[in-house]
């Protein structure tokens, strides 16, 4: 049994209407799940079901209203500033909206470069960057381009590279296949498997592409209107939707 990496206990997140303060809605309600090292979980849900709110809550970019998130047994609310920085470096997001995920005025190299550990020399950083670019099946000359010169698929892969530069223990992938064709989806899937086995990375995998989940997940959850439910297998989601 692998060690527990992340334990989410009954977290809720309330969206408050800025004008009508009394008008509240739950973005997340009593969410609980856990993730062990080198394991993967998948999250299926329609748009506006609370997936992005969950990512923001896990990264402590949005304050939760109740519940607790434990990382390696420690409550993330009790983290010092340094611990929080390290925690966020260990849990990297790959956002669905890759168009907005890259600074439009920085070259791809500069978009990626600053995430490397300061202990590395410039030469080591560039070497690692080139390796990661090759791993994603991209050409090295992409590094000198600006984001608007890249195709959607290239940008998406660049955002995945950015998640890898901090050498994380866990990656949250929000619709990572959304702008890739079937061949590139398969290639990327193989890369994810390779990363998982090489770097011992855990995944939280958020997708609409249900058949892909079976290659990936140790457990599957559905999320709907902020509520989460564990599913036996990916087919159970279809049944759930039909009910």
């Amino acid at each position, binding site marked *: 049994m692998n060690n527990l990496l992340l334990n989410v206990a009954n977290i809720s997140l309330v969206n408050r209407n800025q004008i009508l303060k009394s008008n509240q809605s739950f973005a997340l309600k009593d969410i609980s799940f856990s993730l062990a090292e080198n394991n993967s979980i998948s999250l299926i849900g329609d748009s506006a079901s609370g997936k992005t709110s969950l990512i923001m809550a896990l990264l402590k*970019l949005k304050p939760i209203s109740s519940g607790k998130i434990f990382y390696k047994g420690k409550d993330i609310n009790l983290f010092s500033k340094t611990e929080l920085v390290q925690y*966020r470096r260990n849990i990297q997001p790959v956002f669905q909206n890759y168009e*907005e*995920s890259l600074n439009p*005025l920085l070259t791809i190299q500069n*978009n990626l470069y*600053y995430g490397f550990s300061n202990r590395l020399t410039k030469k080591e950083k560039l070497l690692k960057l080139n390796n990661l670019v090759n791993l994603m099946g991209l050409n090295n000359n992409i590094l000198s381009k600006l984001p608007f010169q890249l195709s959607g698929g290239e940008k998406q892969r660049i955002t995945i590279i950015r998640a890898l530069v901090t050498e994380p223990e866990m990656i949250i992938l929000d619709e990572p296949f959304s702008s890739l064709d079937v061949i590139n989806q398969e290639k990327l899937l193989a890369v994810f498997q390779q990363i998982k086995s090489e770097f011992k990375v855990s995944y939280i995998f958020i997708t609409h592409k249900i058949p892909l989940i079976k290659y990936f997940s140790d457990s599957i959850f559905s999320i709907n209107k902020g509520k989460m439910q564990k599913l036996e297998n990916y087919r159970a989601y279809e049944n759930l939707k039909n009910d």
Partner: protein
Amino acid sequence: MKQIINEIWQNRNFKLGLILLLLVIIFSAILPNILPGDPNFQNMEKCYTKPTSQHICGTDNLGRDIFLRLIHGSGLSLKISLTTSLFSVLIGLTIGFISGSSPKSIDYILMRMTDLFFGFPKYFLFILVLGFGEFSLLKLIIVLSIFSWMETAKMVRSETHYINSSLFVKSAICQGLSKSNLFFIHYLPNLAGILISSYTLQVSTIILVESGISFIGLGVQSPNISLGTILNQARYFPYDNYTLIIFSGLFILLNVSTFHFLGDGLKATTNKEKFQK
């Protein structure tokens, strides 16, 4: 970077602004150091001379060479407006950025303070502050800077709000970038368009404001010369001194339009929406 420089270079307004800037530099920075003669030298035998080869813009009521006075005055007007605009943009950037990236209470206080500054009747305050005590250039620059940062602050604040919510900043936070790195790597390049256009437009506004203040006698004082003081002297003898009015007006127009064209060109080319698709 190459891409951005290419974009800027292809903009017509910017090119025109650059040509005018070259003229401004020649008139206001190079010629005053090359041409001999004292702009305050009076020759009462040559009052109100029409433009000649010796005095290409003619002379004024005290027989002083108008061209020499204009190039020296233009230099001082530019120094004042360039320095004042720099200070006002820096104040605007600081207040706007703090406001945009702080909790709501601080944001509220800073923005109401900005509204208060917006509400002050500027010229009344200029008269009030500059009319008392001894005149100094530093005092003029400080007073002008204090009352001209508000537009920049409002624009920087709203852009900072937009950048705060962008996913590349959230990703950078997750990568552990320090606040200063976040500012210099992500915020400043995205605010650069606003700051550059704000600065250039501010320069042209300050040239006009300084000329106005000097025109009413509260700005630059003799023996210093600015375009406003020259225009002020012209009003005493408008019919005898018409060359003074025309040429000082043309110099003000040249300086103001130069920075307007540069500002417009830079605003259009540093618009980051161009780099988003």
